[in-house]
């Protein structure tokens, strides 16, 4: 019985809460021309959905909370209403 399957254990995975991108009603769109690279969006994103190096947004999981847009000091991120799915 010396087997770890006996314990109630979970493994870390992306999307443990599902494909949370489907929760979005508005999506952040980043204008890299305006971006100064301060990385506040990267740091404040609750999902860790914004790439540190390229500021790419992982729309599969971004829930559309809008914090990145609200906190961007250069107003380089705008929230765009999602089309009806």
């Amino acid at each position, binding site marked *: 019985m010396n087997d770890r399957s006996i314990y109630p254990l979970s493994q870390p995975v992306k999307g*443990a809460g599902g494909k949370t991108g489907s929760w979005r009603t508005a999506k952040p769109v980043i204008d890299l021309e305006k971006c100064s690279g301060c990385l506040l969006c990267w740091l404040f994103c609750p*999902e*860790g959905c914004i790439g540190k190096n390229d500021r790419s947004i992982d729309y599969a999981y971004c829930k559309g909370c809008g*914090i990145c847009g609200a906190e961007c000091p250069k107003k380089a991120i705008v929230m765009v209403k999602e089309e009806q799915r």
Partner: protein
Amino acid sequence: MSISIKDLPDFEYVLPGSAACAGCPSAIALRMVGKALGENAIMLMTPSCAVASIGPLPKSCYSIPVLNVCFASAGASAAGLAMALDALYEKGRLTGEKPTIFNWAGDGGTYDIGFQGISAAAERNDDFIHFCYNNEAYSNTGMQRSGATPIYAATTTTPLGKEVHRKNLPLLMLEHRVPYVATASLAYPTDLIRKVKKAKDIRGFKYIEIHAPCYTGWKFPSSDTVKMSRLAVQTGSWLLWEAEFGKVVLNSPTSLLAAEKIKPAPLEEYIGKQGRYAHLADSPQKEEILAAMEKEIRRELKFMAARAEL
């Protein structure tokens, strides 16, 4: 210790696609904590939003080892784990560097049901960090009042507004004479990360409380989570300070508020944006209540400034 955001590691405690609400302050705070503590850490959690966020077994949104414990268990479980690991390392049964052990608990698990065990662990100076992410209510069960809910705030169990003051738990923890106590805010990430790094390097009991405005419970737009954290500090509703071995230092901008070098942001700007205070808007006592809240803020600032003189 100055922290540059650009130098923070890519490593994440919270993986994308957690079950947390969009804009969850616990997730933001935990990501920051992860960048300060690194991979060699073990997290213990009591029931809270952060536990509901994990996702269902056999999946987990957290990348480091996690022990889910019972609600009143945080203090004792972390203490037991820390001490047992000491024993196993001393006996050579585990090798390498002992991981950092920390609790991630809400204000329910800290102020209320968990307080006895946390107080005891602090008194014993057990070797772990207790983080309280304080969203000022039992948000996980849908926003019932807690010992951290501020006076006048409406919750589902104080629908007319809370009638009594919150506890000052960071101050209570400070007077347990522990090596390190700090308060922090999402809106001041480099201050937060610096404090967590400092706590990591101190042996013994460390307490860090992170103010965590909850948009679903407080009723404001999810995009304003960080903004609300900032306003809490700028109005003096949440004070930033830290104490190494009992010596209190106020951190900016709280220190500037206390020294009257800056004026507090108008309180109405903070509470006026929160649905939990909406009942105040058309209350005939509105002015009186606002004045009482501002008086309380001045009292706390004065009190902490005086405590910093000790």
